[in-house]
Every structure is written in C-alpha cells, then in structure tokens.
C-alpha cells in the first residue's frame, strides 16, 4: 500500500482569470494574468519557480504543443516544463505533476498552470471531432457516430439509462437535473469572475432548446476562455510563505479500462472512474465517511447528469438517491455539502485545461475565508472532481484539499 501524498504538499499561491468569451485576450494574456496573481498571492518571485506543468487540451487553437508556449510567454528561466493533457482532466493533471515533483524532492517550488483559448476557433462549440482535429483516436470518425463533439450524446445516454433504472419519467428526470443547474446559476451570480452570472429557473431549463435528448442547453456547460494557476511547495516549508497554506490531502486519478465501452457489464448509470478514484482518494486522505467529512465540492458539471451521478459515485448520496438529496437542498450553498460554490463549469466556465485548477482555486479561497458572498462556514475539507472524456471512456482526477 503506497504511503500517499497526504499533507506532503501545500499550495501557497493561486491565480485565476475571469472566464468567458474573452475576444480581447490571447492565450499569452491569460497565462500572464493567472501567473501574476498566483505569484503575488504566494509572495514569491518568478526566479523561485523551479519547474512548471502546463495543462491544456486544444493545442491546435493558438497555444501549441509542449509547454514551450508557457515557458516563453512567462519567460521562465530555463527550467523544466511539461505539457500535460488528459482531456478535461488536464488541469488536475498539471497539479499532479507539480505536486509529485515537489513531494519527491526533485524541486522545492513548482508551478501548475492551465489555459484554454477555444473562442479563437471562430465558431460555436469545441473543435470538431470529425474535422482536422482528430481527437477520436484510432479509427475515429470511420466507425464512431458522426459527432461534432461526443460529449453531449454520450452523457445524454447515461441520463436515459439512469432515468429508466430508477423509475423516473423523462419529465421527472429533467426536472431533477434542472434543479442542479438552477443551484449553480445562483452561485455563479455571486461570483465576479464567472462567465455566466444570472439566476435561472427550473422552467428556463425545461424550456431550453434540446442539445442531445434529454439534455438541453441549460443542462450543458458552455465554452469559455480562461487560465488558472497554482504554486506548490513541500508541506514542511509552506508556513514560511504564508500562515494559511492549503494542504493536499489526496490526489488520485482513475482511467477507464475499455471494458465500459465494449463489454456489457457496464450499467451506464454511473461513472466508474469517478467511483474508483474516489475510493483511492478517500483512503489516501483518511476519510471514512465522506458524507460527514467533506465540507464542500467542485465537481465536473459538464452536464447536469454528470453532477447528479457524481454525487453517488463520490459516495455522498446513496445509489439511486441523489434526487432526494437534491430535493432536500443538500448541495445548495447553504446546504450540508455545498457543491459548485463558484458556479461550476456551468457558470464559471470550462476553459478545459484550466478547469481542474479553477476548482482548486475556489476550494483554496474558501479554506482561507476569502470567498466573499459565497463563503461557506468553517470548511475543513474541499473535494474537486475533474472528469475527462465521457462515459463509458473517461479519466477522472480527484483532489482533496484542506487546512
């Protein structure tokens, strides 16, 4: 049984740009802004950074391969830089690189930065799966459905199956999902850095145009530009930088084995990678009863259904019972475990490479008492859940931070 990462690494500075359709900002602008905020927050100088990890999915859109774009934009002084990518889980993957480097003693201070500049595409949505950006792997478009993007439909199929399994009609299911989006919009409205900042109602969600049956426009996160950064150090030197560092309690990743896509054992009503990563993360963090011990969460709400099954996959809600917790307000900002206090992917936005870092940014600020109108009372443990790909072929990263 490996020892794990608990309390070996701390975050001493973080930065996050505003997310949105940032027509006036280049990828370089976003990197610089996130980085400068993190540096100031940490109270260190650039020359103190000894290694860097860049998280980014769509290199083709004006960022480029390797982490050279990061190094040359920030003028990092000939240090090791690595670009990492795990689809939407790239942000947490950047943290992972920096975290393990610091924990291993390979360096004392490391930078993790995630950035995405998808609004340079020139059309709505993400780069096309059936066009020059071949993101579907071997065979890809030759045998897979003619997706422009596989995500809406593949998550939609999970909703169809979930509703059927737990006896929800399409209408009942959609209403439950709608409450999730309404909750996130309420929180996003309180967040000056969020892309979308308006309250919505359940009716708005139900009446929105259909994206992939049964998911509609307001069940889906949008596409945004943005960047976020974190500066990590070994835990034993953290307090020399600030009195309130945030410690990494767990950092676990689980990737699908291929069974779920090609074997009939998968029930398509949950995400196995989330569940497996959660088990390992709770073990690493020494958490025995997550429903009692987790104070707050940022989960990967690319779609409302993703958030719903994640409540169950994280073993917060019992299987099939997430609806009861949603109806009871368990995940509201004033609930037992506030979920998406910063508005989530849905409202803060989803610049893919940055999202995992943005999630930790919110947990970090909450733990330091700096979340303003969104402040949760006395949080101790925050969980981030960052999911790349789609069921049944996904990779999930879970990071648990605390004070």
């Amino acid at each position, binding site marked *: 049984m490996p020892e794990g990462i608990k309390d070996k690494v701390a975050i001493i500075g973080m930065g996050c740009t505003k997310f949105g359709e940032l027509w006036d900002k280049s990828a370089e602008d976003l990197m610089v802004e996130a980085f400068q905020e993190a540096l100031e927050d940490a109270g260190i100088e650039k020359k103190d950074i000894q290694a860097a990890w860049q998280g980014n999915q769509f290199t083709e859109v004006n960022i480029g391969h390797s982490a050279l774009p990061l190094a040359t934009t920030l003028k990092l002084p000939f240090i090791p830089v690595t670009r990492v990518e795990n689809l939407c889980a790239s942000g947490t993957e950047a943290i992972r690189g920096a975290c393990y480097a610091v924990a291993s003693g390979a360096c004392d201070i490391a930078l993790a930065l995630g950035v995405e500049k998808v609004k340079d595409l020139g059309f709505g949505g993400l780069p096309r799966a059936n066009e020059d950006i071949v993101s579907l792997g071997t065979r*890809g478009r030759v045998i897979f459905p003619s*997706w422009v993007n596989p995500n*809406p439909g593949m998550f*939609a*199929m999970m909703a169809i199956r979930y509703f059927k399994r737990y006896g929800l009609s399409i209408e009942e299911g959609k209403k439950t999902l709608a409450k999730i989006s309404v909750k996130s919009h309420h929180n996003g409205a309180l967040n000056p850095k969020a892309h979308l900042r308006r309250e919505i109602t359940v009716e708005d969600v139900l009446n929105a145009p259909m994206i992939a049956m049964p998911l509609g426009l307001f069940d889906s996160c949008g596409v945004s530009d943005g960047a976020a950064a974190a500066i990590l150090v070994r835990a034993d030197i953290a307090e020399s930088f600030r009195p309130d560092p945030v410690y990494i309690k767990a950092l676990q990743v689980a990737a699908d084995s291929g069974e779920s896509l090609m074997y009939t054992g998968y029930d398509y009503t949950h995400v196995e990678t989330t569940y497996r990563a959660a088990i390992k993360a709770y073990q690493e963090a020494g958490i025995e009863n997550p429903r009692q011990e987790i104070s707050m969460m940022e989960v990967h709400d690319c779609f409302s259904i993703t958030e719903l099954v994640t409540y169950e996959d994280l073993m917060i809600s019992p299987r099939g019972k997430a609806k009861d917790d949603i109806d009871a307000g368990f995940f509201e900002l004033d609930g037992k475990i506030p979920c998406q206090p910063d508005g989530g992917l849905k409202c803060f936005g989803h610049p893919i490479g940055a999202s995992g870092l943005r999630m930790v940014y919110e947990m970090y600020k909450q733990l330091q008492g700096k979340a303003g109108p969104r402040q949760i009372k006395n949080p101790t443990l925050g969980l981030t859940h960052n999911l790349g790909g789609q069921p049944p072929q996904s990779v999930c990263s879970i990071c648990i931070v605390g004070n």
Partner: protein
Amino acid sequence: MVGISACGAYIPRYRLNRKAISNALGWLSSASLPGEKAVANFDEDSLTMAAAAAINSLKGFNRAKVGGVYFATTTAAYRERETAAIIATSLDLRQNIRTADFSDSLKSGTVALLSACDSVKARSADNILLCGADCRLGKPGSAQEITFGDGAAAFILSNKGVIAGLEGSYSITCDFPDFRRAEHDKFVRTIENRFVREEGYAKFIPEAISGLMKKYGLEAKDFARVAFPCLDARQYSTICKNLGFQPNQIQQPLIGSIGETGAASPLILLIAMLEEAKPGDNLLVASYGNGAEALFFKVTDEITKVKDRRWLKKYLDRRAELDIYEKYLVFRNLLPVDTGYDEETAKTELPLTWRERRTILALYGSRCKHCGTPQYPPQRICVNPDCGAVDEKEDYCFSDKRAVLFSYTADHTASSVNPPLIYGMIDFDGGGRFVFELTDCEPDAIDIDMRVEMSLRRKYSDEPRGIHGYFWKAIPIIE
C-alpha cells in the same frame, strides 16, 4: 440447368409523393405523374442498396462458397474503384473470386445477369452473386426526376437448387441517344420524349421480345408473366397487347409505388414475378437501354421450398413519407446548405482503412477463445475484466447479428443532413456492445430494448479527397 437459386431485393424506406414535387416546382414545370417514388436516405447509395439486397439473397448461404460478384448500375460511387470489390469485402467473401462492375447502361442489370449465368455455365465459377442498384438523378423540374426511383435487387446464379432456370435470351444493341451522362454530368440527360418512346422504347422492346420468341419457337401464351421497365404507362400496355399478351399476364409496373429504378428495374420486376410464380411458369423479363435484352426463366419445383417469398413485398410495405421536397434535394446533395460548421472534413487514413477493412466494412470483431466474449472492435487483450487474456482471439462477425438498444440519444449538435443524429449503445445477441448510429427511424419511435439489425451505409463522404466512408448503422428490424 443454370439459373436463379436465391434472390433478395432492397427498396429504401422513404417515399416522396410526386405531389410534393409539383407543390415545390409546379410553377416551373407541368411534369407530373401519380403515385410516389422511393428515395434513398442521405446515407444510402447504389452500393449500400446493392449490399442490402445481396445480404438478403445470401440468407442461409455459406458465404465462403460465393464464387464471384457482379454489380450493375449507372450510378456508381466511383469512376475508378470497383464497387463489386467493396461489396465483396463488406460481405466478407473469399479474396480469390472474380468481381466486376457492369455500368453505363440501363440494360446493365440483365447484361450482368446473363454474364453471371455464362460464367457458371462455363464453369468459371460455381456461382455468382449478381446485384444491381441505381440511384439516378433527374434535373429538378424534369420528367426524369418525377419518374426515377431508387432500389436494388440481387440474385445468386448457380446450377444447384435453382428455383428459376435461365432458358434463353435475345439481345439487341443500339446506340440510341435517349439517356446519357457524360464525365461530369450529375443529371441524366434526355431528348424529346416522343422520340424516345416511339423510336426507341416502342421498337426495341418488341424487337427483343419477339426475337426471343422466334428464337425459341414460343408465343405470348407460353409465358405466365411478362415485365419490362415502364417508361410510359400507356406505351407499356400497348407494347404488351401488340405482342399478344393478355391483361392477366402483364406484370404491374412499379412506377407508381417506387418509380423506375434504372439498371435494377428489370431485376426488381423479375423478383416481383417470382414472388407469385408457380412451378412450370415461364417468366419473361426485358431490360431497356442502348437497345434491349429479353430473358426468360422457367420456374422449378424448388420454389415451393422457399418459406418466405416476400422478397420485394416486405420492402414495399416498409415505407415512411418524405414529406418535404427540399429534404430530397439535400439528401442527394443538390442543394448546398449551411450545416452551421466549417464543412472541413478530416483526412481519411487510407492505410488504416485497408488494414482494418474487415473490421470496418465487414463489421468483424473478435471473440475471446478463453472466456467466449464477443467484442467490437477486435481486441488483442480481452475486454472482459475477469479474463484479460492476451492474443487468444478468433474472428467474429457482427454484421449478421441482431441486437437490442441499451441506451440512445438524439443529438442536435452532431453532423447530419437529417437531424437529429440518432445513435445508441447496441448490445448484440450473443454478446458484444458498441456505440453505433441509428438510421431509418424517427427519434420518437425509439426506446430502450428496441430490437435492431445492422445495415451498411455511406457514413461520410470526404469530398475534398474523393473518398466515401462506408460503415454499419443500426436500423429497426424489417420483418
């Protein structure tokens, strides 16, 4: 005796009522006809329809025994790249067979059929799979557009288990300038209809049929049924009457229900006749195009052994209204439309399509010899989490397996000219699961546990590079 030992047909699901055409274009053109025409779906073409008919004809036949494939059409997908070879690959036939495309004439269906019988007679092959299909285009507003329909038929020609033996034929060849298409023509060109009817149709059909009768010493009364393409309903009955046929011998043309199906037309008509035929019947069928060919078959006792002869009927019964004329234009790529995207197309990795041709075109996966789990695509490491055996796989064909819909969605963001794009997780009978597009069905008629079967379709066209991608989609089972 050489002849037909099996047959299969395929008519696409959509029907365009000719009123919809005149509603759209009546202000421009007075061309009209009663009834409706069969219109191939956006993901169908002559290749896919022929493959579907071929699969129907091969039911219960050991595919390893197919000796050759002849394909007839005037609307091949490629000018250079053999369709028969693609069909043979999709059916997973042996590599060491003869294949050929017969094209460029409306009579190529019967030309290919006669050649197939010649090949069997000459012992060049034990049997030949003959399939014919057409997906012809008439210019919007033209009588051709109104008349043409899409469809396919297939026969196994052999000397074993023959249900209808080829007794004789008579061919005439005329470079008659009625229908033509040059290198870059999309639409069939024609000339004055009266000229075509009176100098061509009304002369060549009778010459071929009476030539056949004279050659074999037969008269009209010796035949149970006669059929040939119907370019003109009145001319059709006049020709039959003048040849001495009684009304009860004349096969009902299909122009009113599916339209005139080009090279496939005489083949489809022959199947229509076979559906009702009795042992001992002589069936006379003729093709028309650059002359004409008349063939006659004698039905044998073997036909009584055929359990289900609804070869064509089940497709005539399967229909859905294509209620909007503009949809037809878009399906056939005649109307440039804004799909909302950049319309760039990813490169097709051709070496991959060759290496994985059985996986892609024949829908071959693998079955783990260790635990027996079928899996698609083929896996060297078994997908069964309790197994994980390495390199213990055997070939496993999924194209003929029925399946059940495990989950599905209707995706409005996906790339389709017939939105929404419907796809689902398909669980195959016997094992195996994968995600496939669905087609020939409406979103509100789909639910979990729906039964489906697989159908070869044109999945995409890489237009900038002249490559068509064929792959399998799931369709509701056609009973």
